């Protein structure tokens, strides 16, 4: 078989039983791999909503048909039901773990059940082995990876959880290749609930290529496109993702102190430009990636990776903090302990506003840079104020009687773009299948950055159509599985051509986009089964009712209702947000 390995293994950690999961050609063609195939299989394996932390819940580690081939194809997707949101969730991570898992001969690994004692899984072409994790359980992510790497050899790649995942913090991450993270949605807690510390993958299986000559030419074209594009060929390399700090701040939509303002006066001090001249040691790159957006940094005390843009914001402007070293060290702590930086920082910001309002007397104050890393530690280990911070912002704010202070959608904290400054981004947050996330449809590209075309960020006209299209393209990229940054340099036609040269199957652009639409619609169905309705496709009242008084996004609110009906219509969903029978028939769902 070309492209795919043709093998997905499911293992029950309770019984130790494992078997191959049959997946036919038609299903691969319709769902591709990664997120798409993962969500399809999850939906089939867990047709009724399960407690995400229950033994019977499934977690899937998925590669895609392009994994281990072209640039950026070392990624993998983790799919399950999120303990943070209760929605379907997939979380993506870079590095090389995806390529290693595929080289072990797998398109995917499905884990169910709960081991009696802590274990890890060793995956190779010889099969999947359950091994004792005594001595590894309890370790932070870096020593855990190091110890497992020493046992498995230099070619192996390790994806593991830290103490946060072991302690079932609902926004625990999975770390691999040292500092790459499947961050969002608490997939680390799903692993922890299974007593599963890590998956170690290694192998020698190469992905078979249907059209080697065409593939080689396509690779050269891709190299040229990425090199020529000023974002992938220059900006991301030199300045990393935090170049966005000054850009988003200048647009008056850099969320400051829990989204109460859109301009952070100290933005320059935490910008990508500043990181490049202060903390940066070198850039770092994932598997076969010429872009290298990663930042290896050091403070006076420590070194590590990051901060990326979202993290600079979450521990910076969001908390009124302008101490770049403190932000970096909070980032390092999240990586070591296995926590999502966005939800962690956003929840601390929510806590600060709760404390300021008098609703909670835990003593968290705006700008208290010196305590950031300590709060992260407390959260991962469930001690002190960390017991409450580990709830995530939605449950925390509800506990203290002020649910409106949690800046979340469906329980997931929204990231570093205030939706009042970009109406399309607002609609994307509200309708994202995993909650308040920018990666389901990155409308900042057209609305702020001007890629591939420039759109008026304050207009709602045409936004439902474009959000749906962006969501579908994102689902395709997540299913292939590739890095989203390629989207700055290439379009859907290049993706379908890549897929053709690798698999030998002629996917036209239309078919590929229909696959993306199918994935988004299936995710909608899974969420409906879990009880989500139109009422959940909304934003915190702050964004719908309160205006900024300063900055270039002042005097604006999100006009969600005027976009939502149209969005549902574009999607082929009824006014309540349910896919119609005709839509299901058209997509074969």
């Amino acid at each position: 078989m070309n492209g795919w390995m043709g093998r997905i293994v499911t293992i029950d950690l309770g019984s130790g039983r494992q078997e191959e999961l049959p997946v036919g050609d038609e299903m691969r063609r319709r769902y591709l791999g990664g997120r798409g195939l993962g969500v399809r299989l999850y939906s089939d394996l867990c047709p009724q909503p399960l407690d995400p932390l229950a033994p019977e819940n499934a977690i899937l580690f998925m590669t895609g048909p392009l994994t281990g081939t072209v640039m950026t194809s070392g990624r993998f997707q983790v799919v399950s039901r999120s303990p943070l949101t209760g929605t379907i969730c997939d979380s993506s991570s870079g590095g090389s773990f995806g390529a290693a898992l595929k080289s072990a001969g797998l398109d995917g690994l499905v884990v169910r059940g709960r081991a009696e004692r802590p274990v890890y899984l060793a995956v190779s072409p010889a099969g999947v082995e359950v091994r004792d994790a005594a001595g590894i359980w309890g370790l932070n992510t870096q020593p855990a990876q190091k110890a497992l790497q020493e046992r498995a050899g230099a070619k192996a790649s390790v994806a593991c959880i830290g103490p946060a995942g072991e302690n079932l913090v609902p926004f625990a991450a999975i770390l691999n290749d040292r500092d790459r993270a499947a961050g969002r949605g608490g997939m680390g807690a799903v692993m922890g609930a299974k007593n599963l510390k890590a998956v170690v993958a290694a192998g020698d299986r190469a992905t078979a290529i249907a059209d080697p000559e065409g593939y080689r030419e396509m690779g050269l074209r891709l190299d040229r496109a990425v090199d020529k594009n000023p974002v992938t060929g220059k900006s991301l390399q030199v300045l990393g993702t935090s170049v966005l700090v000054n850009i988003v701040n200048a647009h008056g939509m850099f969320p400051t102190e829990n989204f109460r303002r859109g301009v952070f006066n100290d933005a320059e001090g935490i910008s990508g430009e500043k990181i490049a001249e202060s903390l940066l040691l070198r850039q770092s790159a994932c598997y076969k990636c010429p872009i290298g957006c990663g930042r290896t940094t050091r403070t006076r005390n420590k070194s590590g990776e990051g901060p990326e843009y979202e993290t600079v914001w979450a521990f910076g402007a969001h908390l009124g903090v302008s101490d770049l070293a403190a932000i970096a060290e909070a980032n390092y702590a999240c990586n070591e302990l296995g926590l999502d930086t966005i939800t962690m920082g956003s929840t601390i910001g929510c806590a600060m506003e709760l404390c300021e309002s008098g609703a909670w007397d835990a003593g968290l104050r705006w700008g208290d840079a010196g305590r950031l890393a300590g709060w992260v530690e407390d959260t991962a280990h469930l001690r002190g104020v960390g017991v409450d911070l580990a709830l995530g912002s939605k449950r925390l704010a509800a506990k203290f009687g002020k649910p409106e202070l949690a800046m979340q959608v469906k329980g997931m904290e929204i990231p570093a773009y205030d939706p009042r400054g970009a109406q399309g981004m607002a609609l994307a947050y509200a309708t994202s299948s995993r909650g308040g996330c920018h990666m389901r449809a990155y409308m900042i590209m057209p609305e702020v950055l001007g890629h591939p075309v420039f759109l008026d960020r304050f207009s709602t006209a045409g936004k439902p159509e474009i959000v749906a299209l962006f969501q579908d393209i994102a689902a395709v990229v997540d299913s292939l599985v590739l890095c989203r940054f390629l989207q700055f340099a290439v379009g859907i036609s290049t993706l379908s051509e890549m897929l053709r040269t690798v698999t030998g199957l002629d996917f036209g652009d239309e078919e590929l986009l229909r696959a993306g639409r199918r994935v988004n619609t299936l995710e909608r169905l899974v969420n409906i089964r879990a009880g989500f309705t139109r009422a959940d496709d909304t934003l915190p009242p702050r964004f719908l009712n309160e205006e900024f008084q300063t900055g270039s996004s002042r005097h604006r609110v999100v006009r969600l209702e005027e976009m939502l009906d149209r969005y549902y219509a574009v999607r082929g969903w009824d006014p309540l947000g349910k896919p119609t029978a005709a839509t299901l028939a058209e997509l074969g769902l």
Partner: protein
Amino acid sequence: MAGTVEVRFYALLRRRLERSALAVDGDGLAVLDLLSRAEQQAGRPFLDEILDRGRGLLNGTMILVNGENIRLKQGLATRVRAGDVVDLFSPAGGG
């Protein structure tokens, strides 16, 4: 400086020019002319980072006048006044 337009440089432009801002005598100028004057004043070329060969805006370039993108105004023909702040971003991305 009174009577001038403040031109601020970000991202790769800042590294190229090794400065973050310039006060340009540009009251009443179109943005394109302001940029040419800023380039002369900076003493180093930088317009190739933000304009295409036909001297239109390069895809992804962001030029804000008092926080508003000139693509929503009159583009490079947008007039600036003394006291205005012009932010220049070469194409950039992240996420």
